[in-house]
């Protein structure tokens, strides 16, 4: 199977979490004999090429970071310029986000089913998973721990051509956390979580408290 992959992140490739996810995913895909070509929506110079590839592809995969409960504005802008297919190709999605629970991504997932129809493609499912915010801040083994599991999903996709599989559904993790975990995480967010984010900000050269209010109270 040959897959035309679009990285739908507006973030430049170097800092794109979605790109790091795709690196692992395509590793698995290739190991199972799949081939692919990958494009970045963040690079407007590629838009003509992506439109052309979209016109011809049999299997399309769009990898998307969730932006305000749906797809990012830049990806929307690009897709608005694409000529819809005539039901003659398959489309699947990887939908990822920062918040950890599966429930956070369902509103976006629901739209992808509708989007597939508007793009004139046969919907082949969405691989849904959150808890990916940290990818950008990790390197090496630490990053692999977050992105590594996507390799297996790439293998499965190469074999099946869709995400309509128990293992893919399980990959999402918990829809919401049970109440005792929420209480525990809530305490961590207020304590070590804040210290960690403050540290991160300092390493970025941030000179203000993270709850600074530049425009009001």
């Amino acid at each position: 199977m040959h897959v035309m992959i679009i990285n739908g992140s507006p973030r430049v490739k170097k800092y794109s979490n979605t790109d790091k996810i795709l690196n692992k995913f395509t590793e698995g895909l290739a190991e199972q004999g799949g081939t692919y070509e990958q494009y970045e929506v963040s690079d407007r110079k590629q838009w003509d090429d992506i439109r052309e590839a979209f016109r011809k592809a049999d299997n399309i995969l769009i990898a998307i970071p969730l932006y305000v409960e749906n797809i990012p504005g830049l990806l929307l802008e690009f897709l608005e310029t694409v000529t819809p297919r005539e039901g003659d190709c398959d489309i699947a999605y990887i939908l990822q986000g920062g918040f950890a629970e599966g429930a956070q991504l369902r509103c976006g997932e629901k739209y992808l089913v509708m989007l597939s129809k508007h793009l004139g493609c046969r919907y082949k499912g969405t691989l849904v998973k959150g808890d990916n915010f940290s990818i950008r801040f990790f390197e090496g083994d630490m990053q692999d721990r977050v992105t590594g599991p996507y390799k297996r999903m790439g293998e499965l996709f190469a074999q099946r051509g869709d995400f309509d599989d128990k293992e893919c559904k399980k990959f999402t993790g918990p829809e919401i956390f049970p109440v005792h975990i929420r209480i525990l995480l809530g305490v961590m967010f207020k304590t070590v979580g804040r210290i960690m984010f403050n540290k991160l900000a300092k390493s970025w050269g941030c000179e203000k408290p993270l709850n600074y209010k530049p425009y009001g109270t």
Partner: protein
Amino acid sequence: MVLIVNTTKDTAITERLKELTEQKGIETDIVEAADMNISHCIGCNYCWLKTPGVCSIKDDYEEILKKIIKADDLWVISDTALGFINHKGKNIFDRILPIATMYLKFYRDQMRHVTRYSKSPDIGLIVTGEADMDYLDKWVYRCALNFESTALGAFGKDELEEAVSCM
């Protein structure tokens, strides 16, 4: 104050909204954003981690962001594409992230970002084209959850009276 951001060129809508809100004594601030220079969000995270509350993109959105912080309601008027609001409307929402902080908490049963300001506006949507209105209602509800505010609903341009009754 009810902030209305019109990302379409259809100013008949905002004129009608002005009439309807004046009749009811609702204070509005109408921004005609169709020809403004407003970029998409590039996901740099600077508004959370480098320059808290300030977007790294210097364009016409800054003026809108300052108004959003003071508004009771934010109503976005958008054209539609691919069954959803188009990118111009979506960019208004994507660029709102500076009103949240990097810090996390649980709000109801799910993770949220701690909001930056003491209040966040309730959210309403008016669309000029065809879209799945049930989906847009659900989407507006999810948007409002992120700001711990109330969803006021999604309306078509032929439902302006209904929209104003929610302002």
